[in-house]
């Protein structure tokens, strides 16, 4: 069974966002980039677990980005995976990303495609379902557990106010979140071995953009905090009622 894991590069979670060029772009100076946490902690780790337990035979990692994303995909490869693919393109949005990944994946034929619940940079959470549509595959979003038996997957996924278990035959696209895998730390051996694993660079065919970002804005500073004495919770309740109007 062949698994494809979609890896996106995002600013480290503690990054302070600074805008430039008259607020038309985000300043990347001094920003540390990491593997999108959902891709690393859940999608990739679960793929590795499936390989370790003998269910998966091969894991490929794919990322859409220019050469500057290579350190991140290499880091992902160090965690585990047999081969990495970088689609050499600057992507505007999930629509383009999904098209590029689908174009490559259609040619290989994966049994399972795992992606993260969302990338923490643009917070869309739409790439996986788009990919499923482009490849004419089934899709299960917000997975919290994945098990594979023969040619079928049993997937726990979040629903409003609970969880459900779905069954579906492979091939399948799943977006992963907390619960899908156990946390782990990369070992040095893996990091060394990753250097010899291949990183393919693919030039995609072009696609017409369907969205563009015109500008950015930082949130307004909070108007200032009102402190309430810990002995006067009646006052807090009054403020929440008359001023904030939330209760």
């Amino acid at each position, binding site marked *: 069974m062949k698994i494809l894991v979609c890896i996106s590069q995002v600013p480290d979670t503690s990054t302070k966002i600074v805008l430039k060029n008259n607020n038309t772009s985000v300043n990347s100076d001094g920003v540390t980039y990491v593997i999108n946490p959902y891709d690393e*902690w859940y999608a990739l780790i679960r793929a590795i677990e499936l390989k370790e337990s003998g269910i998966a035979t091969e894991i490929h990692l794919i990322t859409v980005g220019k050469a500057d994303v290579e350190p991140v995909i290499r880091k992902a490869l160090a965690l585990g995976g047999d081969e990495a693919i970088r689609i050499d393109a600057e992507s505007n949005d999930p629509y383009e990303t999904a098209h590029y990944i689908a174009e490559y994946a259609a040619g290989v034929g994966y049994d399972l495609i795992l992606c993260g619940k969302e990338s*923490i940079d643009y917070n869309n*959470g739409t790439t996986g379902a788009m990919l499923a549509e482009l490849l004419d595959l089934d899709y299960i979003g917000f997975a*919290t557990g994945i098990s594979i038996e023969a040619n079928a997957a049993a997937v726990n996924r979040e629903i409003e106010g609970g969880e459900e278990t779905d069954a579906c035959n492979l091939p399948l696209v799943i977006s992963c979140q907390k619960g899908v895998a156990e946390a782990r730390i990369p070992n040095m051996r893996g990091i060394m071995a990753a250097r010899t694993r291949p990183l393919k660079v693919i030039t995609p065919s072009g696609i017409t*953009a369907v969205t563009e970002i015109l500008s950015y804005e930082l949130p307004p500073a909070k108007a200032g905090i*009102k402190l309430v004495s810990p*002995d006067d919770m009646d006052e807090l309740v009054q403020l929440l009622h008359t001023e904030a109007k939330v209760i």
Partner: protein
Amino acid sequence: MSVIVLVEHTGGIIKKQSFEAVQYAAQIAPKMGTTVTAVALGSVTEAEMENLGQYGAQKVLHVADGRLDELHSRAYASALIAAAQKENSKVVVALHDIRGRAVAPRIAVKLKAGLVAGALSYPDTEKGFVIKKAVFSGKAFAYVNILSDVKVIMLMPNTFPPQKQEGKAVVEQLDVSFSEKDFSVKVKSVNKVTGEVPLADAELVVSGGRGLKGPENWGILEDLAKELGAATACSRPVADSHWRPHHEHVGQTGGTVRPNLYIAVGISGAIQHLAGVNGSKTIVVINKDPEAPFFKAANYGVVGDALEVLPRLTAAVKKFKEHHQ
């Protein structure tokens, strides 16, 4: 030409957020010289659908197939595409929630449409079709222009509270020929956490961090939540230590909430935690350390010991409710 809206329901009761989506569409439609058609899937009563008129829908297209009571992303997309074709729609509105996120991206691909996920504003049609959305987990906003002829918008729930008006929608049945493939994902079991307020939809949330010291102290937090009718949440280390169930964990790697009121108790306010809660309209922080970073993101702060403050707050809420019945 109408604007179509995917309407969600649980057990036949239409979700409040879907009223919001219909109302949102009703604000856009006149600007485009058109009206709103809601699309309801599965077992919903005629009366429930007619009520969508109170939020601005002229018409409801009802696909009555009972299999649609469960989420089947392919089938939902097929139904919406059929509706869009019938209505010759240029704009499709869904919610930025679990179901919306499984269906709307499929529709965008089928219709070669640009999509904005998590819309926070009405489209500005002066400079194109520009919609505001949060990026970098609420640390910034982006203004996204949709360039394609057809547009798909996933509205962030709890952005424009729905307001009921007079009105009654006309309900029409829509026949969609589904394929077997449309239902290939089978639901085996459902495990609903009943009796509690679902976190993602909650308007009031009480959340606890490591400052509560241990699971044995959660009773006083739950008391407050119960008194307020709020959902409960927690920080990541709390879930990781199994003090609370995993689905309560909010933040960068957990759930995202956008309630009207978020009360953070004994949570330091790390940037990764804020990422999941900074869309909350009002934030109250209770922390014994006046230097805790969370105070910078709060509207109201209480410097004090959670174990003492929580019962007092619960009592104050109770007293308030008694006077406002």
